[in-house]
Each structure stands twice: as C-alpha cells, then as structure tokens.
C-alpha cells in the first residue's frame, strides 16, 4: 500500500480549484496546495488576517512586518489584491464569498462534523478562525492523514474530540483516498496509487463505500 504523500494530496486538491476561485488555505499542510495551482487559472488566496490575493513568500530583503498571512509568516500580495480588517475578512467568509476552504483535522465524522481545535487535558491554544471558516464556508475540503500516529482511524462514525463545527465538511483527502461526505457515509471518489478499496475500509472506522 503506497498512497499519496502530502504534496500529492495537495496536488489532487488543486484540481478542485476553478478559475476565479477565492480560496482559504489553513495553516500547515493545506498551504502546500498553493504550489499546485495551474498557471492557466487565476485565483485569489484569502488569508483571514486581512488579505485577499496572497502571493509567494518574499525575497529575504523584501520581508515586511506589515504583510503577513494567518500563520504569521511574511508573504507578498499579488496584483489585484486587497487588504481589509478582520471584521471584513470574516464577513467575506461567513457571507460565503470564499469559494473553497481547505484545512487540516484531527477527526472527521461521516455526517461532516470536524474536530481540529482541542484535545481535552492538553493546553488549549484556541480555535483561531477555524470555527468561522467551517461554519459558513461554501465548500470545505479536509486534508489529513487517514489514521493517527497510533494507527487509529481519523474518519469516524462520530467524533470523540470536542467539535470545531457540525455537518460542514464536504470532502476529505487522506494519504489513502479522496472521499465525499454523503448521507450513507464516506464515498470513495478516488483511490491513491496502489491503494485498494479494502485497504481504505480496513483503516476506516466510519461507513465507507465506493
């Protein structure tokens, strides 16, 4: 069983992005998606700290303390970008003007619930913008490992961790497969190379079908 690595997962998600989309990529693994956006598509990356039209990282000499992304990294702004307040930024998000949100998760339930902000007993750092992003997004794709470090399924019938949002995830991409959230459970849309449906089934606690 080979599966996708994180770059291949990012490349697969990038195929879902259409010309003209505004996309919010979560901190961490989802930012890799920006490396795979085809040249023939013009999109605007939204960063919830107040930037629509995020560009690549700057050259060292061009780093600007006043221009960062939601991960607090120095970035650049593309031609056609705009800056705005946090209230404006979340109006954009809540008002469903952002076409696609990609973020990581610790657990996903087959009804589309997501848990990605706290583990009871561990220091809680906060949800940042995650709850707003999932609650009102037009479309949410979760990008995560299929199983936890200990090997247990992260695709569950019901989340065990405190929720970030309910009924909000549309698709999930893992190292094993690209799956759709449906009323019958997770539907396999695409299998990673050399991964069988049985492999996916074996590593999934939730209902899964193809």
């Amino acid at each position, binding site marked *: 069983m080979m599966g996708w690595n994180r770059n291949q997962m990012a490349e697969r998600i990038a195929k879902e992005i259409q010309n003209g989309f505004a996309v919010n990529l979560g901190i961490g693994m989802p930012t890799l998606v920006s490396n795979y956006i085809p040249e023939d598509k013009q999109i605007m990356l939204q960063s919830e700290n107040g*930037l629509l039209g995020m560009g690549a990282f700057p050259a060292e000499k061009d780093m600007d*303390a006043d221009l960062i992304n939601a991960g607090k990294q120095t970035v650049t702004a593309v031609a056609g970008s705009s800056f*705005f*307040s*946090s209230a404006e930024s*979340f109006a954009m998000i*809540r008002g469903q003007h952002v076409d696609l949100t990609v973020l990581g998760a610790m657990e996903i339930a087959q009804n589309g619930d997501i848990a990605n902000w706290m583990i009871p007993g561990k220091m809680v750092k*906060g949800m940042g913008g995650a709850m707003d992003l999932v609650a009102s997004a037009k479309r949410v794709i979760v990008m995560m490992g299929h199983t936890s470090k200990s090997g247990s399924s992260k695709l569950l019938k019901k989340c065990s961790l405190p929720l970030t949002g309910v009924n909000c995830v549309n698709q999930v991409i893992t190292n094993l497969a690209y799956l759709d959230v449906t009323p019958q459970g997770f539907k396999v849309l695409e299998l990673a190379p050399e991964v069988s449906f049985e492999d996916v089934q074996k590593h999934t606690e939730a209902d899964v079908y193809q």
Partner: protein
Amino acid sequence: MSINKVYSDPAKALEGVKDGMTLMLGGFGLCGIPEVAISVLKDMGVKELTCISNNAGVDDFGLGLLLQTHQIKKMMSSYVGENKTFEKQFLEGSLEVDLIPQGTLAERIRAGGAGIPGFYTATGVGTQIAEGKDTKIFEGRTYLLETALKADFSFVKAWKADPYGNLIFKKTAANFNPMMAKAGKITVAEVEEIVELGELDPDQVHVPGIYVQRLFKGQFEKRIEQKTFQEKNS
C-alpha cells in the same frame, strides 16, 4: 480653533487607565500591535486588566510583556499559542482565558462600536462555544446569539493619522485595529506618521477621526514572528 488630539508624550495619552479596566489591543500576532501603549501600560503598573486582543504576544514582546509582570487578569482571544508565560499562568490558574472564534471576536467588537448589542452567527453551533448561548433558527438553520464587546480604552496602531484622528492602516497591519478603534470609550491611536489636516485623502481614510480621542507618534520595533522568505531563483 482647531481640534487637536495629538499628544507628544505617550504616557499622557494613557492617563486614566486604572486597575481592573477592560482594554482592547489591536494586532494579529505581532503585526499591527500597539507596541508603545503596551510599554506604557507596563511602566504604569496597572493590574487586574481584562485584555481583548486576538493573540497574547510572545514571551518577550507584545502582550507577553504584561503577562510577565502579572498585570493581566483575563485574556479574551482567539488564539494564544506561542507564549510560554501565558501557558504557565493559565495552568497555574492565575490567568483567566475566554477563547472566542476569530470571526466572532471581530464581529463582537464591530458590533460594540456600532451600537449593536448582539447578533446571530452560525460559528460555533454544536460546539463547546454554544454552551449557555441562546439560539434561533433562520431559514431552517441554527444560529448563536453573540453579544457586543466594548472597552474602557482601546489601543490601536495605525500607519498615518492627521490631528483630527483620521486613520490609515498599512497592509495586513489593519486586522483588529479598525473595529477596536470604534469600540473603546477612549481610543488611543499610535501611528508612524502624523500629517497636517487636509493631507489625508478623505477617500482613503479607513477610520474616521470621530472614533479616536487621543493619538501620538510612536517608534516601532515591528518584530516579525515568522520570518519566511525564498532564496533567489528557487
């Protein structure tokens, strides 16, 4: 007679801040934070503060400086990582924390400044955040009632101002500053440059001066939290 809200001494601009007050402090991470006000608050030694700020700074910069001196009783934030002092005080129980989703925090502040006592949002429905909150169904969907936030003092950082207090922000250093400027009983703006009345293009003003009571020109370190760059030709 001209209106002049400009203070030459930042310490004078913060007169009236007392123990136990609720303060708003702009910024996202270390970007666009009121560096000077934080340092004056430290010198003043005011305690038992409730600070509404998206983040809590890092150990030795931003609000981390006021955590080190135990001046903060309670933080209302969306994300408080990257700060060991914070973690220690929180685990010891000496620091209260109210974690608020970032968009809800922004809108509660906006509502506070706009005279709207509350609003409904889908954010947090079905999560811990919803506990104890009123809900209402609109068009078949459940929303939470969230209430407005106001502050005794708001401390904001802007790029340019004129003596009336009209403010212009720079790039992503606006973040929470524009809403906080409107939600403070007294709003103190610290800026990089104060220009003459009439020099700011009225079409380009981000926050009209009516919201700003005091302002001063500051010196800023503008520390970068995550220096990220690409090597040439990579």
